[in-house]
């Protein structure tokens, strides 16, 4: 039967008093009432909560919920040499904002970026924890470049730094690595650059399973070429990328896919039966046993209770797919 996974982030606060502990702790840190180390403890508590909620829902490959991430761009960029973090910019077509990285000099990895966070998450999870990295081309496209003068050179430099991080993650024990390149859904002409930037990462990933995930839109026009990118698994947003679904159904895939079929940007609940039957329609063109079912993107755009509901729908649909065979 199809496997289950998530795409990355998870709502870090909910509506109950207990679920708002991270929000309170950050407020207290800002007011000087607690230390960085106190905040770290609370973050770790929330990481445990996020993992527990995924596992309880029945997700096989989980994430740490990216609980400590200020946003998808600055969390990685701020730990690289050559980059400063600036003001807020809208993140794609979402109603969320990221702090824009400003590249002022040569970019390099000066130390571990995600290794410590991944190591902790893995130590408290009985399921594999997937390490998530924002892709070099998306990072390069959303940053302000004041040094390289062209986006390609910046993407290449970021790629080299992230490849080192991937090697470190694998050395620390990561068996699942995911690189996110939502930019590819906005601009298919970046395909060549994404391929080039992915190569050093693919070379560094060792025995780990490397997923490339594209969300916030479709890749229908470049679908065949996306499949050829140097990744073991290709993750696709099949909600905003409904056009990609038609391509998958028609042309199949010669490698495992993550089918991002549960809408992670709207609260409307899917019918698990309908979803299972739609996915079942792909079994002639896909080896579903090697594929994953997932939300269409990170769950952080939903309130926490709705995110839990979506995970339950996802797991139910996956179970129905298993039962029917």
């Amino acid at each position, binding site marked *: 039967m199809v496997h289950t996974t998530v795409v990355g982030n998870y*709502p*870090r*606060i*909910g*509506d109950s008093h207990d679920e708002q502990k991270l*929000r309170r702790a*950050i*407020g207290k840190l*800002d007011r000087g009432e607690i230390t960085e180390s106190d905040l770290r403890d609370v973050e770790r508590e929330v990481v445990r909560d996020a993992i527990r909620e995924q596992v309880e829902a029945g997700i096989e490959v989980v994430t740490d919920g990216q609980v400590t991430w*200020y*946003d998808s761009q600055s969390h990685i960029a701020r730990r690289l040499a050559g980059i400063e973090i600036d*003001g*807020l910019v*809208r993140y794609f*077509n979402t*109603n*969320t*904002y*990221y*702090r824009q990285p400003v590249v002022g000099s040569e970019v390099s990895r000066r130390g571990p970026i995600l290794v410590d966070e991944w190591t902790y998450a893995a130590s408290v999870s009985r399921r594999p924890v997937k390490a998530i990295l924002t892709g070099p081309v998306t990072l390069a496209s959303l940053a302000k470049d004041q040094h390289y003068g062209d986006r390609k050179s910046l993407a290449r430099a970021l790629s080299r730094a992230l490849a080192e991080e991937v090697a470190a993650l694998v050395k620390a024990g990561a068996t699942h690595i995911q690189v996110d390149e939502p930019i590819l859904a906005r601009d298919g002409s970046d395909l060549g650059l994404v391929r080039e930037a992915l190569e050093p990462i693919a070379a560094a990933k060792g025995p780990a399973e490397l997923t490339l995930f594209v969300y916030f839109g479709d890749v229908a026009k470049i679908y065949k070429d996306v499949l050829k990118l140097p990744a073991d698994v290709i993750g696709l947003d099949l909600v905003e990328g409904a056009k990609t679904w038609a391509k998958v159904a028609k042309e199949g895939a010669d490698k495992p896919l993550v089918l991002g079929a549960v809408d992670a940007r*709207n*609260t*409307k609940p899917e019918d698990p039966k309908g979803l299972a039957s739609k996915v079942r329609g792909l079994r002639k063109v896909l080896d579903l046993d090697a594929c994953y079912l997932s939300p269409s993107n990170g769950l*952080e*755009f*939903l*309130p*926490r*209770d*709705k995110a839990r509901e979506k995970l339950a729908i996802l797991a139910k649909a996956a179970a129905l797919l298993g039962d029917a065979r």
Partner: protein
Amino acid sequence: MSALLTSTVGSFPKPDYLLKARTRAAKGDLTPEGLRELEDRATLDWITFQEDIGIDVLVDGEQYRGDMATYFAENLDGMVVSGLVRSYGNRYYKKPIVVGELRRTGPISVEWFKFAQARTQKHVKGMITGPYTMMDWSFDEHYGSREALAMAFAKALHEEARDLEAAGAKVIQVDEPALATRQDELPIVVKAVGAVTKGLEAKTILHTCYGNYDAIFHYFNRLPVDQLLLEMSNSGLDLLERFKREPLKKEISFGVIDVHSHVVETEEAVRMRIEKALSIFHPQKLWISPDCGLKTRSVEEAQGKMRSMVAATRAVKKDHGIA
């Protein structure tokens, strides 16, 4: 109306006593009537402040609103307010959910408009959160089409605009901060805002901010309003060159105050921004405003910024012999 009128975008910061009262009210420790009394007081204070410093077109300051989308959502049938979702960093908001047919069961902001307008001889703006933004900032469990949902909001908000007009509003502002989110949906913005402003006698203003203006520039003249209120100072005034080449056929409210900075602009700095605006726009078609609502600033910062804006506008008018 005379030239170079001053106005603001809509929201002012809530004073400490009101913030505390809202927390108490949320916990049930303060009655709605008790809260309302303090909202009245804060609104009156802001009206008095605007009168005192000499702002030309006033706002009620939105002391009674939490989030600009949630406020309308709470007052429309067919909507519920969801749990918290993250906006950025440690900021979260309650995103509305459309769960059924949208319907306005009665006036939403009209009573507050009347309250404010009754306390000044100057015009007070009627303030509406735009249909496209309401759609983009809500979950949709009912309509299944972004355009259909935007038009459903437009219908309800048009009724609100009509009622504001009937209550005496001579200026009605439609806020569309989401306008620049998806370029391919600009035709929906035009259609939905048009459905709100259709047939209104009042001067209509559309406000937007913090987007990629360059990409939406070609749509500015198509927006079905009399005036655009644009954030200009935070964008580094880059847009001016483009306006030189491709003139705006409408009036403009020109943002000269950065609302995201704690620093109160000097009168001199604001004067330079106004001079730049005057080099491109006719004074009769140019209003002076902050970039956006001031609610995220402290009361002192907001007041300081407004004083700089009014003083700078007066100085420029004097220099140019504008009445």
